[in-house]
């Protein structure tokens, strides 16, 4: 064995030993990570900041496990070792409790955890959602849309809040609390206490103009992005193409008018997790089912004869002052819809303006009341009246609510165009039947959904949604053809069932497997709009689904299923034939497309932030969001440590001084080797 091989072997051996080593910093060893905690973060609009932030290095506090508000009061009045971090069940997270915690001044953070309590309501949106961007007078004091709303979601909370779902982690905290903290409260300061460190430090403060300005200052030596605008994409699709003619020579159908069927795409919650069962999933599922149903009963000829096409639009970011609809209307008014930059007389696509919309049907929350459906509209018009009477003909359950308009994308259109013909279909008359609006508990349980592979249960949500789709679909059919629908085609209950599963339980559902090949995580997809430069999975998957359900068959599935030569009116995709035949693929010609759902406030140069015209929501950036548990030493111990540290520093100075002053005794001076020559 030569020297080099030996050396290499030795090096390998040393590396092996080193790699078994446990490379954790000593200062981190005193902590234990709490996994799965979902933080609350900061958002900003033109005038305010909302949400939570921790201190720069994390907020720490002594754990106090409180099952009830009485226990919480006890520690707020008798705590001797502040600051505290209460850990409490999610049920007592109310505006009153938060106010109390802020006022006490001895709370540095809060952890709420899930348990088996049944909740009557849990919604932290406003009592009148989107108050500044909705039409004045549509939310009345005697009939608030969201009466249980605490508005905590829109409150600036000076400490971090985390939501903990994992039971094991809650037990870990509880056990530590019982062992070290939960006795002899008067002398708590004299002993080591179990504590938490919550880290969720937010970079942005004050308001959107401030953080946008700070993110774009050129002279800044350390450029930091403080916040990002909220935004994603709106999805739209037409029932039949907006153009006619053979593939390479299509011409836009300029004289067509449109019926818009819309729903919202997003929800939100106080924490970094969303559910969205009733709002928006019931609306999305109804829209998608309706798309398939209408594709089945209406033909291209019907559309051409009536010169009336159908546009399906899913608006994104509606929770935050109608971002998606504000942008779409802005685009429409500027001639940027469907695509920006087309000339009025182009030969690619017709330009669609608000005047071209003959009727706007918005599907709101539909899953919490299966006995009645309400049709809200503000003013009577022939279109609305005749559509309502058609709905009424097809179902007894329909009831109209004149001069009423729950929070909906339609507000955006009616604010700019007061006589815009639109109506909102919902499960509520004067206030939400959904008591968990925009919260983590607006889940499958809230709307009573259980996956039923063959959809046999007649009284289920699935049948109800299919039925609603048929009623609306038949009325739209009658509006377009002028004839009562008497065919045998029915809405697809199995599809409804699958779609609910896609959004509420498992994204790897049959519908998503039919439209794309990617593998997805087995947790429900987030329906929070997110920030503008990140595309949401949910939006992409929904756009494929909508495209698929309104697609035209373009022949055999093969590698030639591409948009070549390019036609801007279509996309071509290979997709499964149906959810029952996932392995049979066909080539589909799709009219679906997306448009930016980013508020016009961020694209208009020198936008006047104080005008209140458009949504200005941004989300702060942050680097870390986590929770750790540790044992905080008693204050006597802490003081002792710092005293010993300081003393040893002082002694070391004295020692070095003495060594230096007596260096000639301690060290023999070097003898000069040669005599200096220059003296």
């Amino acid at each position: 064995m030569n020297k080099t091989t030996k050396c290499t072997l030795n090096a390998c051996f040393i590396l092996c030993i080193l790699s078994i080593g446990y490379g954790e910093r000593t200062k981190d060893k005193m902590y234990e990570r709490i996994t799965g905690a979902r933080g609350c973060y900061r958002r900003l609009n033109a005038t305010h900041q909302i949400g939570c932030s921790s201190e720069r290095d994390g907020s720490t506090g002594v754990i106090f496990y409180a099952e009830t508000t009485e226990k919480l009061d006890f520690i707020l009045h008798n705590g001797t070792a502040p600051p505290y971090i209460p850990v409490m069940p999610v049920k007592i997270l109310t505006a009153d409790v938060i106010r109390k915690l802020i006022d006490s001044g001895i709370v540095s953070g809060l952890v709420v955890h899930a348990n088996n309590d049944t909740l009557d309501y849990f919604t932290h949106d406003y009592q009148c959602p989107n108050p500044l961007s909705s039409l004045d007078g549509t939310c009345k004091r005697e009939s608030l849309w969201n009466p249980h709303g605490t508005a905590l979601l829109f409150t600036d909370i000076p400490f971090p809040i985390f939501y903990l779902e994992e039971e094991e982690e809650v037990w870990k905290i509880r056990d530590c609390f019982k062992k070290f903290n939960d006795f002899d409260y008067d002398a708590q300061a004299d002993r080591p206490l179990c504590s938490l460190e919550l880290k969720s430090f937010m970079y942005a403060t004050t308001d959107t103009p401030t953080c946008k300005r700070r993110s774009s200052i050129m002279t800044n030596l350390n450029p930091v992005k403080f916040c990002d605008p909220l935004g994603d994409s709106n999805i739209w699709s037409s029932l039949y193409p907006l153009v006619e003619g053979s593939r390479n020579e299509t011409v836009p159908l300029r004289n067509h008018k449109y019926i818009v069927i819309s729903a919202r795409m997003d929800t939100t919650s106080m924490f970094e997790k969303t559910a969205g069962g009733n709002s928006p999933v019931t609306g999305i599922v109804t829209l998608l089912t309706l798309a398939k149903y209408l594709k089945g009963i209406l033909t291209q000829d019907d559309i051409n004869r009536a010169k009336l096409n159908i546009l399906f639009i899913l608006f994104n970011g509606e929770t935050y002052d109608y971002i998606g609809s504000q942008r779409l209307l802005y685009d429409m008014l500027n001639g940027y819809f469907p695509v920006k930059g087309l000339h009025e007389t182009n030969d690619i696509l017709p330009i669609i303006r608000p005047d071209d919309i003959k009727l706007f049907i918005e599907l709101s929350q539909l899953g919490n009341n299966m006995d009645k459906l309400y049709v809200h509209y503000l003013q009577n018009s022939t279109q609305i009246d005749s559509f309502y009477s058609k709905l009424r003909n097809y179902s007894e359950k329909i009831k109209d609510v004149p001069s009423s308009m729950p929070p909906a994308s339609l507000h955006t259109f009616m604010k700019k165009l007061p006589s815009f013909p639109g109506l909102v279909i919902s499960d509520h008359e004067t206030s939400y039947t959904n008591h968990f609006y925009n919260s983590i508990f607006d889940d499958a349980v809230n709307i009573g959904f259980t996956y039923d592979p063959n959809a046999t249960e007649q009284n289920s949500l699935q049948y109800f949604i299919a039925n609603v789709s048929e009623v609306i679909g038949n009325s739209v059919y009658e509006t377009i053809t002028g004839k009562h629908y008497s065919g045998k085609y029915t809405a697809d209950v199995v599809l409804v069932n699958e779609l609910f599963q896609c959004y509420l339980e498992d994204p790897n559902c049959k519908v998503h497997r039919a439209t794309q090949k990617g593998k997805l995580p087995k947790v429900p997809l987030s329906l929070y709009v997110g920030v503008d430069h990140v595309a949401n999975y949910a939006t992409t998957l929904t756009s494929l689904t909508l495209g698929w359900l309104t697609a035209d068959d373009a022949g055999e599935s093969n590698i030639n299923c591409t948009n070549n030569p390019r036609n801007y009116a279509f996309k071509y995709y290979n997709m499964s034939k149906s959810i029952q035949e996932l392995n049979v693929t066909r080539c589909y010609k799709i009219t679906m497309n997306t448009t930016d759902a980013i508020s016009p406030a961020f694209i208009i140069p020198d936008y006047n932030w104080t005008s209140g015209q458009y949504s200005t929501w941004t989300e702060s950036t942050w680097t870390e969001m986590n929770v750790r548990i540790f044992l905080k030493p008693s204050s006597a111990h802490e003081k002792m440590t710092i005293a010993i540290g300081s003393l040893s520093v002082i002694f070391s100075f004295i020692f070095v001084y003495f060594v230096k002053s007596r260096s000639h005794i301690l060290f023999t001076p070097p003898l000069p080797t040669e005599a200096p020559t220059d003296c």
Partner: protein
Amino acid sequence: MDLTKVSNEKKLSLCQWYFRIGFLFLPFVWAVNAIWFFNEAFRKPAYEEQKRIKKYVIFSGIGSSIWLILIVSWVTTFQLNRARWGAFADYISFIIPVGTP
């Protein structure tokens, strides 16, 4: 540089140059001058150049103190008013702290 090994004329010229360079908005040079030549100016037995060195040391000391007062008062004013001044404060900053108004 060890001043004990330098001739008195060299000391004077060094002190003089430090004093002059300080006028280029370099208060630290004045501060260094004042501290470095303090012993030469006030503690050493009198020699011919000492009088002029003393003068430069005193003026450098005064100059750097004025600078110190100005800087401290500006920093205090700026830090106290940064949030209130809004856009103006941001535009004159080279580093903007995160998470503070």
